[in-house]
Each structure stands twice: as structure tokens, then as C-alpha cells.
């Protein structure tokens, strides 16, 4: 009998595409749960009633406030286990409720934070670290020595040059030169190509 795996998704295209891409059916009975993260209270009973393995495939749209709240919900349920795909290409440390896609390779001494999604065919270089609640797309290269803060989104195909620093909350659409420093006080957005600035931190 196959083991049940619960997969948390939201309604975004990113989340739904990630779900299509992971092909778990051959190994597990997949129980897909679509969450309304803006109304987590109504999901409380559902989340506390879960048992077995759990995989989180939530889009970056919901990665800041509500992912933090969701994390609190999940850790308080002792009947569920975090699920990380233990492929033979995973050499780094992957924290709870995070996921790395097909053919993605994490190098020695690399780290992936809590509840972070990494798509397929990506590379996380040695001595690199990816923060909590991040979304790393498909075919992304994170070169050695890179540090990525919490709540960062990196879109498909981006190459982050070695030893670059990406501050929290950034949304990275274009490749980043080695040794660059993307401040956490300036966030690129897809809102008419604007940059949002954080003040007062």
C-alpha cells in the first residue's frame, strides 16, 4: 500500500504548475489541499487534522506574512512529517517543509531554509545559503558562496553570480553579477517594472 502524502497548494499558476511538475503518483497516494492563505483561521482544523507526510508548494504571492503563520500551524501538529525529496543529488542541508525539484542539485555545505521551494533543474552551489520562505524557480543557478535572505523570489533561468548577496524580500528577474549586493531596502517588482523601497528598518 502506498504512503499518503499531503501536498499544500494555492490557486496561483506557479503553485499549480509546480504540482503538475513533481509527479509523485508512482510513489505515493497524493492528497492535494488547496489553501486560502488569507483566511488561515478557517483552515486551522484542517491543518491540525493532517497526518503523514506533508509537502508545501505555495507560491511567492503568499510567502511573507501568511507563510510564517502557516509555519506556526504546521509545527504545532506533531502528527505530520516534513517531506523533502531525498534525491542522490542532494548534498546540502534542506530545512523543514522545503522542497527541491527534479534534477536539482544542492552542493556540499549549501543550505536551504524553512518552507522554501526550489524548482527543477536548478543548482545551489557550495557554501551558498537560501533563506526561509523563498521561491526559487526552474533552471536557476545559484553560484558558490551566494547568500539569499528570507522571502526572496528568483524567477526561472536566473543565474546568481558567485558570492552575491540578495537581501530579503527581493524579487529577482534578471541574472545577477558575481559579488553584487542587492539591498533588502529596494525590491524589484513586476508592478509596471517599478522598484519598491522599504524605509525605517
Amino acid at each position, binding site marked *: 500500500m502506498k504512503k499518503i502524502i499531503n501536498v499544500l497548494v494555492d490557486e496561483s499558476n506557479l503553485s499549480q504548475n509546480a504540482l503538475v511538475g513533481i509527479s509523485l503518483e508512482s510513489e505515493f497516494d497524493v492528497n492535494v489541499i488547496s489553501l486560502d492563505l*488569507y483566511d488561515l483561521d478557517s483552515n486551522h482544523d484542517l491543518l491540525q487534522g493532517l497526518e503523514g507526510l506533508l509537502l508545501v508548494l505555495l507560491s511567492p504571492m503568499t510567502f*511573507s506574512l501568511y507563510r510564517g503563520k502557516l509555519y506556526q500551524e504546521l509545527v504545532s501538529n506533531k502528527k505530520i512529517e516534513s517531506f523533502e525529496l531525498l534525491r542522490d543529488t542532494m548534498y546540502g542541508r534542506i530545512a523543514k517543509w522545503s522542497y527541491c525539484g527534479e534534477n536539482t542539485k544542492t552542493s556540499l555545505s549549501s543550505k536551504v531554509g524553512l518552507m522554501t521551494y526550489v524548482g527543477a533543474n536548478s543548482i545551489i552551489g557550495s557554501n551558498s545559503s537560501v533563506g526561509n520562505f523563498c521561491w526559487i524557480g526552474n533552471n536557476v543557478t545559484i553560484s558558490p558562496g551566494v547568500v539569499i535572505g528570507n*522571502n526572496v523570489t528568483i524567477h526561472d533561468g536566473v543565474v546568481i553570480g558567485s558570492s552575491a548577496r540578495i537581501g530579503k524580500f527581493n524579487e529577482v528577474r534578471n541574472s545577477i553579477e558575481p559579488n553584487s549586493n542587492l539591498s533588502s531596502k529596494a525590491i524589484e517588482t*513586476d*508592478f509596471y517594472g*517599478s522598484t519598491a523601497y*522599504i*524605509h*525605517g528598518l
Partner: protein
Amino acid sequence: MFSTVGKVMQILDYARYYKPSFFDQENEKLFSKLWVYGCSVADLPKTNTYFLAKMPFGEIIISRDGDKFHAFHNKCLHRGHPVVTKLRGESNFACPYHQWCYAKNGGLTHIPGDEEFYLTNKEEYTFERLQPVALKRLGDFIFINASKSPIRIEDQFDSNIIENLEKTKDMLSVVSISLSINLKFNWKLIFENLRDPLHPMYLHPTSLTQEVDFYATQNKPIINHEPIRNLIEISNFSRDGDLRNMTAPYKEDFIQCDSGENYLNWLLFPFTHIPCPDGGVLYSVENYVPISAENTRFDLSLFITKSIGKTSPIAVLYDWLMKAKIVLSEDFDAVCALQERIKQSDQMQNLGVFEQQNYRINNFLDTYIYEKNN
């Protein structure tokens, strides 16, 4: 030729949305004469800081000196060079051109080589100051008026507007998010959209209307065709609907300036919109600054009240930005599409009865601002 549908209140000539002559009159008779939003107290987090407000009538420095605030033109008394170029900073004002120095209140304090090169001395120029601009603080929001004889702010905004803004006094956190976008539409079009009580139902069916039960879709409009006689009739504060989720989990971790039950909405003529979508914690200041007849700069500032719990204010603000950009994009796409077609078409727009406030404001502009021979 143009067609009319339903009971039409007014046929509007499109020229007001793209002809520079209309814009010039608006700038001369409206923007530089009225109170406009300058910045928030949160933009001036401590004494000795300034904020540069870029307005159609010029750049205005707003500076803080303890609990006092000053506003003056960003134009050196020497040659008119900008005294500051950055949007925010510390108020050590020294014009980069010849280092004329100014105090926090805009007073001229020092001219390098004054006696040698300018044949003057400190006693002679110490009373000179950068051209002042009137300033009024309403709650934690600062308004400015560039007119040499400004009207009373109470003659522009009614007591409902002022009292509800005053509730934010000393309540806003210094943590905020801001962005600016140049948009290709006339500033009036976006406000006509914002005053249109039906548009959320059709333009935001999967975004904003999922969060707010708008009263406008439940109640029949009160018909008012009377011409506007006072400025005070143009701006308003309203509670536009009940929030579907009044108990969002972050709210208990922040000071609440209102009951938390309604979508709060300030529409401040000429070009400021302040929605508070969660009823008293998050304040979004949308300044649609007119740049030309066909261009508007959208300055968005997201503010949150002071924290009294563990939730990170920046996480709430960021999450809100993600939601707001969806609603705003829906509005901007629609209004950009209107602007694009305005010059291409020989049609004129016809306003329905429910758009009575837009009709009344256009009538007001025709009567008091635009000359007949545009």
C-alpha cells in the same frame, strides 16, 4: 458623431484629457492653489530629516525640527539650483552649486565667501529664507499649499475627512514601503474611476470585491444633480463596505485607528486617494501627481500603525503590496486603455446617472477652471 446609452447626464468633450491648455489651467488654478498631500510623519522619522515632494508646481522640501514641520521650495536663493536632489535625507541643506547653506526652517545661514565675493555679510542676509509653503498636519499626514495666500484647509476638506485623518496622529510606524510609476493617462481619469461606485464589481471581481462587501452594489445611489458651489463638496471620506474578514490575524499586533470593520476611503481632490483596506491598520497613500496632460506619476506609500505584537510590520506591508498591485493594475490597465482611445476617437464619453459626482466635478471645472476658448 457619438451615441448615447441610457439616461445620460452629460456628454464630455475628451479634449480635457489630453490638451496641454487644459493642463496648464489646472496647474495654475488648482494644483498650486489647493492643499495637496506632501508626505507622512513616518517619512520624517526623526528631527533633522527632510522629504522632497515633487509636485506639478515645483519641488517642495518638507523638513522636521522636533515636533515642528516646515515646507519650502527646493530652489536656492542664489541661482535657483535645487538645494537637495535626493528624496529623503538629513536636513543639512547646502546647495551643491555654490554651497549656500540653509537651516531646517529654510532660513539662509551661510554664504561661503560672503564678504569677499558677494559684498554682503551675515547680518544682511540672515532674515532671508527659501520661499515658504504653507503646511498643515492632519493626523500623521502632512499637506502643503503653495499659494501665497492659501485657503483654510477646512474650506477644502470637511470635518469628516479631517477628524478621521486625525485619528492617525502619532499612530504610524516609521516602517513603510514606497514606489513610483509613470503612467500614461490624465490624472482626472483615474479619479473618475475611483469615484465610480460600480467599477469594483466589474473591474475587481476576483480581487478587491472578494475582500469587501461594497455598499454601492447593494444600495441605490442618492441622486444629486446640484452644481458644486464649494470645494468642500468635491472631496470625501466614506466607509465603502464591510470587510469580509474583520479579524485578519495580524491586526491584533498593531494599533487600530478605527473599528476594523469597514473599508475606509479618503478621496481628496485634486489628486490624493487614501484607502485603508483593513479598517484602521494599513494606510495606502496613492498620490496621482499630474505631470502633463497625458502623464501622471503614481506615488504609492504604504504605511502601517505602530506594532504592539510580534508580527513583523514589513511582512504585513509586503503582503499588502502584493495584493494592492493586483487591484491597482486592474485600474491602471482600464484607465490606460481609456486614455489611448481618447485621441483616436471622434466619440465623446457619456456619463450615466450613477456617475453623478464625476458629472458635477466636470461641471465645476468647466465653470471655474477652464476658459471657454480652449
